[in-house]
């Protein structure tokens, strides 16, 4: 498939979108932050104050360093800036240390490292096929994708309220995907291996990467014997990657569930878009069946799906179901009353935008979603009112305090499973040409 780059000079709308969301993030500096704040502060202290040999042994805090080494080096480099804000936060014994300087530094570091995410989003927008006729900006797929990525509700709420560095990490993922979409597989593989060494949750995606790269990159032609590969330089690195992939395959059920999808990827060279689909199935499958999964992991599926959603009608429908349910499932993460308006308003904003923009983008006969799916999503409103307002104010709050969480999880699981099945069906169906918009 030939990817058409967006016309140069038409991207004057991108900087305001990026800058606007960055400024909005700054407004949340004093909002509620979770224990993840202390986690990262502790890692800043560990990497700054202790020698490298002690980093993974230090356990005076309960939040020990449990990300791969590259992330530890990332924290180490951040700590050099941190000492100018408040050097007390870099002392390992200062457990649960909070000061205005510490909060300001940590929040701003997330905002600044989101620059990687912005760069990744830029690259992905460039890979989106533009329609032939000149449309106004708001209706272009690249514009819609930029908004869906940069203003993603889940990332905003998890990174800038709850506190994490997902934007930074997803930036690497988006860059890697963009490189693969542009057929620059070496760069894509390098970026993915960097990402793996930053956070090992991305191992969920490793099967898709492994199979795709083995089949479409190592075998330069079909029906060729595998021995031809050994002469070139990159397959050695890819083989090492494949070795890691197979060794952790036994860990969770996710890759087993994704097996038919992986086989289909092996069945014939089907290009980067099929790879993206399988990647999504791996991520979502691991989310559904994996060990000790956190709700934030749903973002691993939502963000790459945005790229497919602006190009394909069927994927847009899946995106709307997955995103709305996945984002709503993040609500229990922000349980403080002060942040309640923020999560509701941001969720409404993103949902209204994604529905209207994708509907306009894929205007045509029929609707994007089936009536039952619409009814399910509308039912989310009732769930929200029940779990956020009615139940906490009712007498059951004392006797059944976990009921809201139960209702939220069970209701959202239906939507997520449904999206998983929709993705699988769309993959195993014979590949149709990407619809020309």
């Amino acid at each position, binding site marked *: 498939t030939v990817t058409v780059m967006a016309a140069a000079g038409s991207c004057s709308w991108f900087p305001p979108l990026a800058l606007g969301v960055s400024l909005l993030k700054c407004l949340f500096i004093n909002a509620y932050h979770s224990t993840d704040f202390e986690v990262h502060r502790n890692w800043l202290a560990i990497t700054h104050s202790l020698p490298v040999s002690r980093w993974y042994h230090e356990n005076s805090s309960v939040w020990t360093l*449990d990300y791969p080494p590259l992330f530890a080096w990332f924290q180490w480099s951040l700590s050099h800036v941190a000492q100018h804000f408040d050097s007390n936060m870099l002392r390992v014994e200062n457990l649960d240390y909070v000061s205005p300087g510490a909060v300001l530094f940590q929040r701003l570091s997330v905002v600044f490292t989101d620059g990687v995410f912005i760069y990744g989003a830029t690259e992905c927008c460039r890979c989106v096929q533009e329609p032939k006729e000149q449309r106004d900006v708001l209706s272009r797929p690249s514009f819609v994708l930029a908004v869906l990525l940069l203003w993603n509700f889940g990332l905003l709420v998890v990174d800038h309220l709850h506190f994490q560095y997902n934007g930074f990490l997803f930036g690497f993922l988006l860059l890697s995907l963009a490189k693969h979409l542009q057929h620059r597989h070496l760069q894509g593989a390098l970026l993915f291996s960097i990402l793996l060494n930053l956070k090992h949750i991305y191992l969920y995606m490793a099967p898709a990467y492994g199979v795709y790269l083995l089949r479409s990159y190592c075998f330069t032609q079909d029906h060729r014997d595998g021995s031809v590969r050994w002469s070139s330089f990159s397959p050695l690195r890819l083989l090492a990657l494949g070795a890691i992939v197979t060794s952790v395959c036994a860990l969770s059920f996710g890759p087993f569930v994704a097996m038919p999808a992986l086989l289909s990827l092996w069945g014939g060279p089907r290009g980067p878009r099929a790879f993206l689909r399988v990647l999504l199935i791996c991520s979502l499958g691991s989310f559904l069946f994996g060990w000790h999964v956190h709700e934030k992991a749903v973002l691993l599926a939502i963000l790459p799906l945005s790229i497919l959603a602006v190009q394909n009608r069927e994927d847009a429908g899946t995106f709307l179901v997955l995103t709305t349910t996945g984002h709503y499932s993040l609500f229990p993460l922000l349980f403080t009353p002060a942040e309640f308006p923020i999560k509701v308003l941001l969720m409404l904003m993103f949902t209204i935008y994604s529905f209207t923009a994708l509907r306009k983008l894929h205007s045509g006969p029929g609707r994007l979603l089936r009536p039952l799916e619409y009814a399910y999503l509308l039912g989310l409103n009732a769930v929200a009112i029940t779990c956020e307002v009615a139940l906490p104010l009712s007498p059951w709050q004392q006797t059944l305090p976990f009921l809201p969480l139960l209702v939220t999880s069970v209701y959202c699981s239906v939507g997520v499973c449904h999206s998983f099945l929709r993705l699988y069906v769309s993959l195993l169906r014979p590949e149709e040409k990407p619809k020309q918009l």
Partner: protein
Amino acid sequence: MQTWSLVSICVLLALVVRWGVSLNSYSGAGKPPMFGDYEAQRHWQEVTYNLPLQEWYFNTTENDLMYWGLDYPPLTAYHSLICAYVAKSINPEWVELHKSRGYESPKHKLFMRATVLVADLILFIPAVVLYCLYLTDGSSRKKVSTLFCFLLYPGLILIDYGHFQYNGVSLGLALWGVLALGLGWDALGSLAFCLALNYKQMELYHALPFFCYLLGKSVQLGLMGRGLFLLVRIASTVLGTFALCWLPFLSDPDHAMQVVRRIFPVARGLFEDKVANTWCSLNVLVKVRYILSSDSQIYLSLACTLLAVLPSCVRLLTKPTFWQFKLALANSSLAFFLFSYQVHEKSILLVALPVCLLLNDLPLVAIWFLHASTFRGLTACAGWFEAMWFTVALSKHDTEDMKHDASVSEGRSAGALRCDLAGLPVLQHLFTVSTGALFRGYLETGSLPQAAFLPPQTGPGLDREMEVLHQRRGHGGSELCDCRSGSSITSA
């Protein structure tokens, strides 16, 4: 994209930005004994709830006027009373007489911020939406970008949601008045404006244009026929509204006079604090405050204000069109701001509202003024010159000029996104709001915002368990292994 979805996204973003600002510190946080405007509003709820109406504006043993005595007209008092009823039902400690002085807590802050948001949602925001959709011309894209800029004006957001005030109510009511006049509903417009006047006496800055416009319109319709009828209707609406608002205070003339004395404190002097108006700036070179007596100061400021306001009002009387009305609003409020007596720096908001109405017609001038009006230090010098230039620019502009400008600019940018109207100014608004919110806290509390740090909500028993659960769930780093039990990746 459909207009309604763009409008709802604009409104939602405006609400998010407002609430984001309100997470920060408020005026006088943690600063006994006087605290700040936040405590003043809370105190008024206490006074209006616990004391009978006759004592609200008087210095009694129960009501110490030196500690944030009521100095706004009755409608503010009624609003405080309504809020007090809600406060009492949530937590009576918030409005307990005497004992609740200086009361501060995260829940109370949430409640107070919520009252500002609710008031905005009911009054200010719908007025802005209706104005931008029905009283501005251009494509729907242009209207939405005007709405975007109007709703994100930093000055109002920072003062209402940062410092803490209820300017959105009075400005919202005034805007409803402008809206009604624009749609030709004169009696309703005067009703809305009278309500605004009875909420904050500073709305007098806008009173002359309203008066001249309605008078001019009546004259145009003919004083012997429909004009007289209109005049009588408006006069009776105004008198009726005032009577209704002041009814409880009219039984005793002394009482009414005391209220007037509270809301117009003439004894305070020509200016207080550093304000970007003429007298403050002039005082740097010529010590006006010491050269002239207090009475002469009043007469001087009155004369200068009237002189500045006269041209636009006379013009409005002779040619009562909506465009002239908007210009006169801007001109009059600016003249009052520059030359009036005892001007407070927050009065710049009264100028900002008419300027926002002109966003669609004079975008460059309007945006520049709105920026200058937001920055505290900058307004001291640049604001004055900017304001004079703006006033001159207003007087030169005529309807025909405006139409010509609009058609030229439309032709140039046909089909493209109006980034010049929406993109850059909105970004600058957002930048101002976010840095303003941060540094306002610094200016209020003397250090980076401390009072705003809320520890995770904890409580005894089950709450504690929930807290621990959320703490455990908060850290999702160990997706592939249970870090507490120490099991490694390879053991399944």
